[in-house]
C-alpha cells in the first residue's frame, strides 16, 4: 500500500475523534491487522448495524459504544480506545458477540484492548476497576486461591482507594455489609491456601517474562 502523506492535511484536520474525520493511514490498517490476527475476530466484517450496542447492558455507561469500538479499530484510533471508560466498564457478558450478525467477537476485541491498556502507561479511566483486577491477581499469587476478606482489605490499601471511598460514602456501606456478612459466617479471617502455590508462582514468573 502506498504511503499517504498526512502532513499536508495536519493543520486543517482536528484530531478529535467524535466531531472530525481522521484519515485512514497505514497505522490504521496496521492496528486492524494486528488485532484481527491476535484475537481471530473478523473486525473487517462489521457493517455498523449497532446490534452489539443495543444488546449491551452497559452501553449507556460507555463513552465509546461497542459498535464504535469496532469502527475505531478499523480506523486505527488506538489511543482513544486506550483512554476510554468502555474497556473497563465492559462486563464481558458476551451479549455483543453472541448477537452480532457477522460474528464479530466484539467482547473479545474489548478484552484484548483491556489487556493492552493494562500493560501500557496510560492511566485507566476507571481506576478502581483496573486496580481491583490487579489486586485480585496479587491475592491469587499469594495463596493460590482468593479470600474475599483479604481481597477487599488489600484493595482498600491500594493508593487513594480508601480516601476516595470515604469521600463518596461507599466505605460506610462496605463496612456495614462486611459486618453483616461476617455475622452470617460468610467471611473467613484465615485464607485457604492451595498446596500448589509454587506452581502458580511459576506461572507469574512466566508472565513477567512475557513480551508485550
Amino acid at each position, binding site marked *: 500500500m502506498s504511503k499517504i502523506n498526512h502532513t499536508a492535511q495536519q493543520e486543517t484536520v482536528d484530531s478529535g475523534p467524535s466531531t472530525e474525520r481522521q484519515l485512514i493511514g497505514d497505522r490504521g490498517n496496521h492496528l486492524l491487522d494486528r488485532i484481527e490476527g491476535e484475537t481471530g475476530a473478523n473486525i473487517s466484517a462489521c457493517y455498523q448495524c449497532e446490534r452489539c450496542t443495543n444488546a449491551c*447492558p*452497559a452501553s449507556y*455507561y460507555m463513552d465509546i459504544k461497542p459498535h464504535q469500538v469496532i469502527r475505531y479499530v478499523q480506523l486505527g484510533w488506538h489511543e482513544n480506545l486506550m483512554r476510554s471508560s468502555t474497556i*473497563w*466498564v465492559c*462486563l*464481558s*457478558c*458476551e*451479549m455483543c*458477540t*453472541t448477537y452480532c450478525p457477522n460474528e464479530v467477537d466484539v*467482547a473479545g476485541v474489548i*478484552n*484484548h484492548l*483491556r*489487556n493492552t491498556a*493494562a*500493560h501500557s502507561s496510560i492511566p485507566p479511566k*476507571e*481506576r*478502581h*476497576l483496573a486496580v*481491583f*483486577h*490487579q489486586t*485480585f*491477581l496479587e491475592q*491469587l499469587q499469594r495463596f*493460590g*486461591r*482468593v*479470600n*474475599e*476478606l483479604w481481597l477487599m482489605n488489600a*484493595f482498600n490499601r491500594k493508593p487513594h482507594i480508601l480516601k476516595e471511598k470515604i469521600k463518596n460514602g*461507599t466505605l460506610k456501606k462496605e463496612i456495614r*455489609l462486611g459486618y*453483616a*456478612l461476617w455475622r*452470617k*459466617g*460468610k*467471611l*473467613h479471617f484465615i485464607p*485457604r491456601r*492451595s*498446596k*500448589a*502455590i509454587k*506452581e*502458580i508462582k*511459576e*506461572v507469574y514468573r*512466566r*508472565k513477567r517474562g*512475557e513480551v508485550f
Partner: protein
Amino acid sequence: MKLSFYPGCSLEGMANDYARSIIAVFKQLGIELIELEDWTCCGATAAHSLSEMMAVTLPARNLATAEKLGLDLVSPCANCFNRLRFSQVMIQKNIYDVPWQVSGDLQIHEMTRFLAEPDMIKLIKQRVTRPLSGLKVVCYYGCQMVRPPKITGFTDYENPQTLDLLARAVGAEVRDWSFKTTCCGASIGIGRKDIQESLTGRLLQKALQTGADAIVVSCPLCQSNLDIFQMDAGGSGIPVFYFTELMRLAFKKNDKAHKWFKVHFTDPVPLLKEKGFLT
C-alpha cells in the same frame, strides 16, 4: 457414580451455603464428588481482563489434575465453568503453551446441565418426598454459564432450560420471563456502584413483575448480587435460592432448614412457612 469436583473460591467463602447444599444433594442422589486435590483459583474476571495468557494458564493446572484423576469434572460456579472451558478450548487450539500436560479431552460439566439430563431428572423426581407445589419461581441463569455458546456448549443460550427443568422436577411452578440471561453486573460494583445497582435493580423489578415468589440461581456471584441488593429491604424482598437449596428442601423433611437460610439477606423462611414447607 463418581465425579471430580472443582468448587472454586466462592464456595469456600461467600457461597458456603451453596457448597453445603450441593454436598447434601449429591449425597442423596448417590453421586460421589471428589474434590480436586490442591485446586487453584481459575483467575475469574481479573485474569482474562489483564492477560489472556494468565486466563488460559491458571485454570490449566486444574484441568491437568482432573485429567489425571480420570473422572468427568463438574463445576458448580458459572464463572469457574466458563474459565475452565475457555482454557481448555484455547489449549485444544494450541494457542498457548501451558506448563502442565493437558490433553484437552476432559469432559467438563456445568452442574445444572449435568443434573438436568433426562436420567438425572428421573432420579431427582424419585428422591422428592416433599414437592414444592405452589412455589412460584423465576430461574435466572446469568451470562457466564451460557455465553459465549462456542465455549459453554449451550445451544439454547437465549432461553436456557436447565434450571427450569430442575425447579419443575422438585415441584415448583416456573414462571417465564425475558431476563434469564441478562447480566446482573458481576463485580462491577467494586468500582461502579451505579452500574451494578441499575442492572441488579432491574432484574429484581422484572422478577417481581412476573408474580414469582422467589428467584432460583446457580451462580454464586448472581446470588450475592441479587440478595445483597435487598439488604435494606428487610422482609419485603424476593428470596434468592440456589437451585440445590430447593432440591435439598424437597428431598428430605428436615426442620433444621430454618438454619440454612439464616445466611440469606432476604429471609425465605416466612415464605416457606406460608407455603407449608416449613413449620
